[in-house]
């Protein structure tokens, strides 16, 4: 113990004692010795432990409490003097030397010169308990804070992205270790607005302006820019910043993350190039189908029409064979015309953008059937359309599906005595969000061995006894495919056919 300390101790008018946490007296002044009816020298030979009785806290706890504060703390204690008399005292404790709080800490206790009443003693005791609780809670909070800070720092430094924070005015005040690692530039050079020097020159102005704007608007920001790596190359980062606000809504800090999106960006560029190429191919296809629709149709019209004119105007000078041949020419021209129309339709389906919405399938099937039946004029056809759930799709396209499937059903039941066509639906066991719609007929059917060919372009399972271009089911397939559904068929020769397709159900 320093001589200064001992001198100060001696000069104190009040009784005071220096002791270790386990109660060994290091020094005591005369006033203290007098209090106990002893001398300082004699006191040093006896531990105070037996003479000083703390009401609630032990000496250790006093030491612990004192270690939490730099000032003096009030305590109460009773003290036995040499004659064995007990007196209650109020005392103040100061921790002089922290050392090991549990073992070697040095405590100075200064006693009030006058004894206090018992009730004051108890009051002090309560204060002390409250103080102890508060100090313990504060210590606990300190530990928790340290732990959470550690946790955050660990987190920030271990996530794959990079993290930074900015003061409310926008100056950077923290960059995570990944930034330093990635850029090779020390954190202190990146703080403030230093980070902008690491941006690609082409992105710098744009990024800084957007960032300043976000700060002024006090909003959020999402930016993409290139950052210089330690090897001098630049890579794309996606940055997102959010303001952390206090309860009043003022910005305390900006918290930002940046993720390396260079691979993504390069993939995007590759996609853009490919998309452009596709668009060009699409344009070519567009002009091709334009030519097809215009240039092929015109000569077909010529063939058909002028054959018809021969029929009309010179029919009388032709024999039956001549008229038959002319009929064949006309029919072929008409068929080729229909084929062109169907093929163009098929090509158009692939390109057209989808207009998705809830579609009332029952109504749509009825509409399609009505249009077909108007041209059909068959009295024996029994068509039943059941109630079906609405689906999510493009109504124009789905109507084509119904038109094609119902058209087929009507066509392939023409040779049947009591033709019956049914339309209905089933839940899809494989996907609960889809519905299976079906069209069932009792027509000529088909051989299941060829079922896989049904939906191919120009694939026809029937010959010329039924008209058709062989494109209808390909159109169905393409439309359903674009809706993310499936289309298939079941049938047997002379046993009817059922065509199924799935579409996503509309939200109820």
């Amino acid at each position, binding site marked *: 113990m320093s001589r200064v300390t001992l001198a100060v101790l001696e000069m104190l008018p009040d009784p005071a004692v220096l002791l270790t946490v386990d109660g060994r007296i290091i020094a005591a002044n005369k006033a203290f010795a007098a209090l106990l009816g002893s001398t300082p020298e004699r006191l040093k030979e006896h531990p105070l432990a037996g003479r000083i009785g703390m009401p609630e806290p032990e000496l250790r706890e006093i030491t612990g409490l004192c270690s939490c504060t730099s000032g003096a703390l009030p305590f109460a204690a009773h003290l036995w003097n040499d004659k064995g008399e007990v007196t209650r005292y109020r005392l103040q404790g100061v921790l002089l030397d922290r050392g090991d709080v549990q073992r070697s800490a040095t405590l100075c206790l200064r006693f009030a010169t006058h004894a206090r009443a018992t009730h004051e003693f108890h009051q002090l005791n309560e204060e002390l308990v409250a103080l102890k609780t508060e100090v313990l809670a504060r210590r606990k909070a300190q530990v928790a804070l340290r732990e959470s800070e550690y946790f955050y720092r660990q987190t920030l430094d271990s996530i794959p992205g990079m993290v930074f924070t900015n003061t409310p005015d926008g100056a950077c005040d923290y960059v995570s270790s990944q930034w330093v690692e990635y850029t090779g530039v020390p954190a202190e050079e990146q703080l403030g607005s230093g980070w902008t020097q690491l941006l690609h020159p082409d992105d710098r102005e744009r990024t800084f302006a957007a960032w300043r704007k976000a700060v002024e608007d006090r909003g959020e920001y999402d930016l993409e820019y290139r950052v210089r790596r330690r090897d001098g190359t630049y890579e794309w980062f996606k940055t997102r910043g959010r303001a952390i606000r206090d309860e009043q809504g003022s910005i305390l800090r900006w918290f930002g993350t940046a993720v390396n999106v260079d691979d993504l960006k390069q993939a995007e560029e590759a996609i853009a190039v490919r998309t452009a190429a596709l668009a060009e191919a699409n344009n070519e296809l567009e002009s091709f*189908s334009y030519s097809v*629709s215009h240039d092929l149709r015109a000569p*077909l019209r010529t063939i058909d029409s002028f054959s018809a004119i021969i029929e009309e105007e010179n029919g009388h000078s032709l024999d039956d064979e001549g008229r038959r041949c002319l009929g064949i020419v006309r029919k072929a021209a008409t068929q080729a015309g229909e084929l062109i129309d169907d093929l163009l339709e098929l090509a158009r389906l692939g390109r057209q953008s989808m207009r998705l919405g809830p579609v009332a399938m029952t109504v749509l099937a009825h509409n399609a059937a009505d249009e077909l039946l108007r041209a059909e004029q068959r009295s024996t056809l029994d068509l039943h359309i059941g109630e079906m759930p609405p689906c999510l799709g493009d109504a124009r396209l789905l109507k084509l599906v119904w038109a094609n499937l119902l058209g087929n059903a009507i066509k392939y039941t023409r040779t049947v005595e009591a033709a019956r066509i049914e339309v209905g639906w089933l839940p899809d066991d494989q996907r609960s969000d889809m519905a299976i719609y079906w069209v069932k007929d009792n027509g000529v059917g088909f051989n299941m061995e060829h079922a896989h060919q049904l939906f191919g372009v120009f694939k026809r399972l029937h010959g010329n006894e039924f008209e058709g271009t062989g494109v209808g089911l390909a159109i169905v397939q393409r439309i359903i495919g674009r809706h993310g559904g499936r289309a298939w068929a079941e049938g047997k020769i002379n046993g009817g056919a059922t065509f199924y397709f799935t579409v996503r159900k509309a939200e109820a």
Partner: protein
Amino acid sequence: MNGAEILLVEDNPHDEELTVRALRRYHVANKIHVLRDGEEVVECLFGAGRESGVCANTRLILLDLKLPKMDGLEILRRCKLDSHTKHIPIVVLTSSRQESDLTRSYNLGANSYVVKPVDYLQFNEAVRQIGLYWMLLNQIPLER
């Protein structure tokens, strides 16, 4: 050319013949004037032809889209912008089913858009209906 009631803008001689035959067959017009490319149309409607009063007499223009020198859409645009010709009904009669042609035609002010059927009977029926509607039923302002 004076007093032609229908201007048929068509470069395909076969289609031209079929259209004229059909119009005559159904007696929808006495005077049909055929123009075979864009330049002829410009000359007729905006050039020398204008003096001869062709604009005042024309009650219908049947317009093909794919034409030499100036395409049908450009002719359509010019006709609908000009105060002398903008009231003349223009029916686009084309082989094109392209959605883009349809949209652009209507955007430019076409009065009707008909795809030429390949089938002879359907073609005749289409021309007959066009003629009946636009020449007999439809009214256009006299003062132009």
